[in-house]
């Protein structure tokens, strides 16, 4: 099976989706500029400006237009270049995309995908954020944040085919992650977690880029004979906790690793569900590893102390096992 990057996996899914005439891509600098992260590079040349639509810098308009087009039968894929800019489109997402199906009694669907990306690398406070929890808080949205090239391709395809609005969260530091991906078209169902690594001593529940960091932490701990089991949630809404809870019943201890602020963050929801459904299997308090609770500093040294690192995950696991 070919080994390709996350970027290439996403490109394959998008090319595949573009076979459907209803699908079009809309966003800032996706065409003429050549795509900020290279995902849609060459698409303008291949599919033309009608279906690869460079837009003004107007996030609310971009997402609103995608919603309106979806309502009348199109399958738009809107790209918000960086999740930090999505705040300008939250009214569209929350008050329209998420509600149109239920608020109008189920007669109108909004089959659109919003692709956006988390990430940081000395971009300072306004360009190094994660709003996963905001998206995932909202009934009516589906929220996906895969980790591997295989899931990126299969879940983006599934998201585009889904009749509901899907927020598809990528990560700037993950586009070069490689993995095996079949050449043919396939989908990976939304709302299904997966076991990313088997182990008997402790469960790490995580998603997106943190899956890879957790794997590295597990490799380090394996040298000491500690077997870490890793659950990749893949979808945040609806949140499939079945795999995590099964694992937790086996290991009785868990660490939740998410790349966002801890207070009221995604890790709070994940830990709460472990407590709710795993209480009688709990052998130690559940630990969490997250961003430190500050706006991201620019200074490299401070930034590295703020983000989640392999060392911090290793430390949290050891502490939870003590």
């Amino acid at each position, binding site marked *: 099976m070919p080994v390709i990057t996350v970027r290439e996996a996403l490109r394959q899914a998008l090319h595949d989706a573009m076979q459907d005439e209803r699908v079009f891509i809309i966003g800032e600098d996706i065409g003429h500029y050549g795509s900020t992260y290279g995902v849609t590079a060459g698409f303008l040349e291949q599919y033309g400006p009608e279906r690869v639509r460079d837009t003004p810098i107007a996030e609310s308009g971009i997402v609103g237009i995608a919603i309106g087009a979806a309502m009348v039968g199109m399958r738009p894929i809107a790209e918000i270049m960086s999740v930090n800019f999505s705040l300008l489109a939250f009214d569209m997402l929350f008050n329209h995309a998420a509600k149109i199906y239920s608020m109008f009694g189920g007669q109108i669907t909004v089959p659109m995908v919003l692709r956006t990306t988390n990430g940081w690398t000395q971009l300072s406070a306004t360009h190094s954020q994660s709003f996963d929890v905001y998206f995932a808080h909202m009934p009516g949205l589906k929220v996906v944040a895969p980790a591997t090239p295989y899931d990126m391709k299969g879940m983006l395809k599934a998201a585009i085919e889904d009749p509901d609005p899907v927020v598809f969260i990528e990560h700037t530091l993950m586009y070069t992650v490689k993995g095996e991906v079949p050449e043919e078209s396939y989908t990976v169902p939304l709302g299904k977690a997966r076991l990313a690594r088997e182990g*008997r001593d402790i469960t790490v529940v995580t998603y997106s880029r943190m899956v890879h960091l957790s794997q590295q932490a597990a490799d380090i701990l394996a040298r000491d004979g500690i077997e870490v089991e890793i659950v990749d949630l893949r979808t945040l809404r609806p949140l499939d906790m079945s795999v995590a809870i099964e694992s937790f*019943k*086996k*290991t*009785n201890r868990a660490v939740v690793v998410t790349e966002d602020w801890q207070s009221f963050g995604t890790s709070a929801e994940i830990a709460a569900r472990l407590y709710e459904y795993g*209480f*009688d*299997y*709990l*052998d*130690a308090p559940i630990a969490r590893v997250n961003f430190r609770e500050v706006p991201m500093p620019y200074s490299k040294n401070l930034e590295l102390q703020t983000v989640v690192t392999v060392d911090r995950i290793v430390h949290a696991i050891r502490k939870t096992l*003590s």
Partner: protein
Amino acid sequence: MPDITMPKMGFDMQEGTIVRWLKKPGDIVRRGEPIAEIETDKVTIEIEAFESGVLTEIVVQEGQSAPVNAVIARLNGGNGSQAPAPVAAAPTVSTSAEASPLPASLPETPAPPADVGDIRASPLARRLAREYGIDLRQVRGSGPAGRIVKEDIEAYLSARGGAPASTPVSAPPPAPTPVSAPPPTSAAVSAPSPAPTPVSAPSPAPVAVSVPPPVPAPVGVAQPAASTVVPLSNMRKTISRRMIQSWQQFPHIFVSIEVDMGAALTLRAQANAGRPREDQISVNDMVVKACAIALLAFPNLNASYSDEGITLHPTVNIAIAVALESGLMAPVVVNCQDRSLGSIARETKRLVALAREGKITPDLLQGGTFTVSNLGMYGIPEFTSIITPPQAASLAVGAIRRTPAFKDDSDEVVAKHLMILTLSADHRVTDGAEVARFLNEVKRLLEQPLALLVG
């Protein structure tokens, strides 16, 4: 005749006040015409008529309030449009009242054993301890701050030989077993037969199981049978309230003494010989009489504590605890200081009979200054009782046991009829030494029982 009702002028309006009527009775009102000004908690606003006609009656006067939809005025000769009848009641009230009712009785929340609850243990360790009948106090915790974790339970089990020590009579079956926890069956293999798996545990246990106390199954775990909740009778509620009051507010001290009842039994046999059954004297009567005499010398124990001071009661009114099928009752033998032994015996019999027949009246239960409680007839050697507020002391009378004992100061062993009395006293009123002296006086009176006849 259409009614004009208090209009809802905002999504959150529940009532309004008539500020001013713009029409008076007899005025012609046209549809759409303002008829009154009303004030809500937010605004003052004109309201308009939805029907045309003549205003015949103002129901809610200026300055008065009415809930939404209440009739505020009446019109005569409307235009005949068939408006639906106004809603009967204010909607906000009915909606909340229609919320799904709670079930009549809720299962009681299982309370963890008070002492075990203070132990640091993980939820998993607690559950395993429940299932294997392990007293967590016996397990050493290896986790942070000494927390007992799963490994500690496993270590304890293997040290103990695997099998549950005492069959967990009411323990739940080990439903969804944790994957890595030792399955109960493997533990049972090394245990002596019959394999005491909790599932097939024999019941009932004739004596109290030492540890653990039976704990109701946690929610979500299969239970052999549903527990039932018996509603509290008024008597149980009263007992509950008063015992809690006493136990929480009265610092109890307990002092016991052993009494040789040989002479008393002899005297009783002589006194009862030839007496009609209804006049016979019981050991309890003799104890009551002894107390009545002794209390005259120890007024602190025939007293009531309050923050203002200690009330010393002028009479000795002894409450006799009587066990009934439905609970407990303590009719009061008043003026024991003036009563002969026979009088105490007759009065006690009368009161006990009334209580058992359910004919006791409240006045016969009031005014007690001291209580005597007796479980001797059940063979209980000794016990303690809880003081009945606002009394200062309560005497618990055990069974008379025929016991080998040394005769006086010699080495000769003889059979003695010994009885243990335990006094519960309110430590705010009295102290241990005083209680000891009082008990010695009671003991003296019972061991030299002629005093009971003359006192």
